[in-house]
């Protein structure tokens, strides 16, 4: 028996969606800031609330897809969405006004955004900024994307249908060149999140004249200065940074540099002590066999080279002046010592532009180019505010054109 197949022209469907989205731009720009802010805050609250239908749905469906424990997923939702407040949005608008004065900024006609798969909450900040500046946003979700972006878009629609119509989540394979071209052709601001390889490959599809906003590979590091008084507080904060998203973020710390050998060992021990309770309060998701294999070997190497402090679901390797080596993530971090801040700069320099966040309690001083990490207090590396720099640039970078 033959079956009739319904042919769906995905390219035409996407183009029509993008056209409708572009038509929303004047509507979005005509809205009052208060209306936009209310919609954003309403949607964020809806998802942050575990009692709401969408909040419950997110907590039920996302953990397995995001490869995070339910507790970790709840933490990720709360810490991301709680940054979206009236005060925060007002501060964003004020900063924007200050930055652009006396120019007359023109928002992007359409912002296309390709997301990566490592962090389930990564889309929230760029969506918020798109709406704040008045640029409708089309998002291509990663194949393994967990669905939070779609839930946030739905929450926006439920809060304010007009605003919801300014966000278009789409799903298609990265290998589908015609769809990628269509997504990019309609936009004049194009954000690409992912590995350096992905950014490079997709950049070829960015049309001439469009602003490319690249967000490639990244990692985080931490520094403890000789004068830092409270090592325990530092370790407690940093442990949260290590545990956040099971260390999968591009801001997640992978290495700690400490001034002074004895303090280095102390930090390693304190960090392990601080990671221990998080194994219960924010449990790590189970590891795949390849990941577990890489982890156990990394830990054995840590024992062979220095000292290892490990527990259920975490480890800290102290290797005094040893080489910085690949960290298997999944809450494993290395601690090394440096003689002074000059040596810190030397040890960080090889990371180059990939170093996206540096946690420290006190002033780190100038770092040599191209290092330009976001400086963070311990405990906040993977919790950037809406106003925090993004890849060393203001978060609205590329979304506005200045005229006159």
């Amino acid at each position, binding site marked *: 028996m033959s079956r009739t197949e319904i042919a769906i022209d995905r390219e035409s469907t996407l183009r029509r969606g993008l056209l409708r989205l572009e038509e929303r731009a004047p509507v979005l720009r005509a809205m009052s800031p208060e209306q936009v802010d209310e919609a954003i805050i309403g949607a964020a609250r809806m998802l942050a609330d575990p009692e709401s239908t969408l909040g419950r749905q997110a907590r039920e469906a996302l953990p397995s897809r995001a490869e995070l424990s339910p507790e970790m997923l709840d933490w990720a939702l709360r810490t991301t969405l709680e940054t979206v407040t009236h005060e925060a949005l007002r501060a964003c608008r004020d900063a924007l006004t200050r930055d652009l004065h006396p120019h007359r900024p023109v928002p992007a006609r359409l912002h296309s955004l390709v997301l*990566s*798969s*490592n*962090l389930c909450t990564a889309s929230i900040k760029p969506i918020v900024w798109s709406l704040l500046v008045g640029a409708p946003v089309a998002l291509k979700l*990663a194949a*393994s994307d967990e669905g939070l972006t779609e839930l946030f878009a739905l929450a926006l629609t439920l809060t304010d249908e007009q605003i919801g119509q300014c966000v278009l989540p789409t799903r298609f394979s990265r290998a589908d060149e015609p769809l990628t071209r269509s997504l990019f052709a309609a936009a004049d601001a194009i954000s690409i*999140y*992912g*590995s*350096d390889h992905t950014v490079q490959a997709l950049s070829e599809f960015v049309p001439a004249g469009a602003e490319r906003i690249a*967000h*490639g*590979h*990244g*990692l985080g590091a931490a520094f403890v200065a000789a004068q830092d008084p409270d090592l325990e507080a530092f370790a407690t904060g940093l442990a949260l940074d290590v545990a956040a998203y099971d260390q*999968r*973020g*591009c801001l*997640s710390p*992978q*290495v700690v540099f400490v001034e002074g050998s004895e303090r280095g060992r102390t930090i390693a021990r304190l960090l392990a002590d601080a990671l221990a309770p998080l194994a219960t309060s924010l449990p790590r998701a189970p*590891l*795949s*066999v*390849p*990941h*577990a*294999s*890489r*982890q*156990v*070997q*990394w830990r*054995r*190497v840590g*024992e*062979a*080279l*220095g*000292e*290892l402090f490990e527990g259920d679901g975490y480890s800290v390797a102290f290797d005094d002046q*040893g*080489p*910085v*080596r*690949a*960290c*298997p*993530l999944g809450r494993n971090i290395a601690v090394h010592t440096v003689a002074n801040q000059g040596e810190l700069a030397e040890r960080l320099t*090889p*990371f*180059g532009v*990939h*170093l996206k966040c540096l946690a420290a309690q006190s002033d780190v001083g100038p770092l040599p180019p191209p290092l330009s990490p976001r400086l963070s207090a311990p405990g906040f590396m993977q919790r950037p505010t809406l106003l925090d720099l993004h890849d060393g640039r203001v978060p609205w970078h590329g979304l506005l054109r200045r005229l006159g």
Partner: protein
Amino acid sequence: MTSLRELTSDVHALISRCVAKGRPEQDPPRRDALLARIAAFQAEHVAPFGRLCRARGAHFDRGPDGWPALPTDVFRYARVAVHPEVDDQRVFRTSGTTSGARGEHPFADLGLYDHALEAAARRALFRPASEAAVDRASEARFSLVMLAPAPDEVPDSSLSYMLGRFVQHFGDDVAWVLRDGTFDLALLIERMQRGEPTAVLGTSFAFVLLEEMLDAEAPFALPAASFAMQTGGFKGKSRELDPLAMRALVAERFGLLPHRVVSEYGMTELCSQLYGRGLIDGHAHEPERLWVPGWVKVAAMDPATLAPLPVGMEGILRFDDCANVGSCVSIQTADRGIVQGDGAVILLGRTPGALPRGCSLAIEESTTE
């Protein structure tokens, strides 16, 4: 107090015993007792291994399961040797094609390395034409064709060193047909047409490249006593071939029966090698089963815990190699495999890397670009 000289002498004796006619090839109690003595000695004299043993709580009286194996990665970050650097006679280095520093295996004396490689190769590769001639094995000599760089080209390659020793022990003559990354096809073809028992030895990647270059050429027809040995995977290479297809390709190209195409498994961090059993057993196994020398113990370990697994279960391979007396006797690899009831090993490739997803980045990748 055990000395390095004493241990080295005992390893020489064990190797000789394992390949001597009329003696069992495997003597696990004797091997394990020697492994324990070496491990205890190295825990005192090789700093990284000593630290690992102290951290894990080694019990040298419980056999190889009683102490931890050193991951191969340690060779990239720390010196693993009983002797001081000033006594280095030779340092073998890993290819280091994926990322970061190259692993180093220093030697103060290559006597034991040579003994182990010759004994194993004589047993598994350069066998006489008939069993009756086993006693006169030393007379089995071949025309050697090498599809790998010569030792003078890459003095820090353990593979090239091994091939160079093969020339001394088993070669009537040798043709290094891969020079400066280029094949000398005229030389190769001339050797193929001599009609002499020939051993073609090289890396898997070189065999594949050669096939691409000879694509239009008719297959060679080497004499029946000939064989081919291919080694190494395709780490960092753009082309890849599964082991069975590889064997078929080489057999067809050189006119060999499938069992006369065998694999070698070796690594910079190990002094001994494993070989496909094809030439020993006289037939081809699918998948290929590797012969393990009597002075080596191979075990499959749980990839997540490194606990030993029962025979027949897939795990990541740990090698306890008596010939590693000057560095570390127990080596943990990331290679997947199965150890069978008779001690033969089936290789299943490397454990796939658990690389970070999306925009997250492992440190090493960030610093090597």
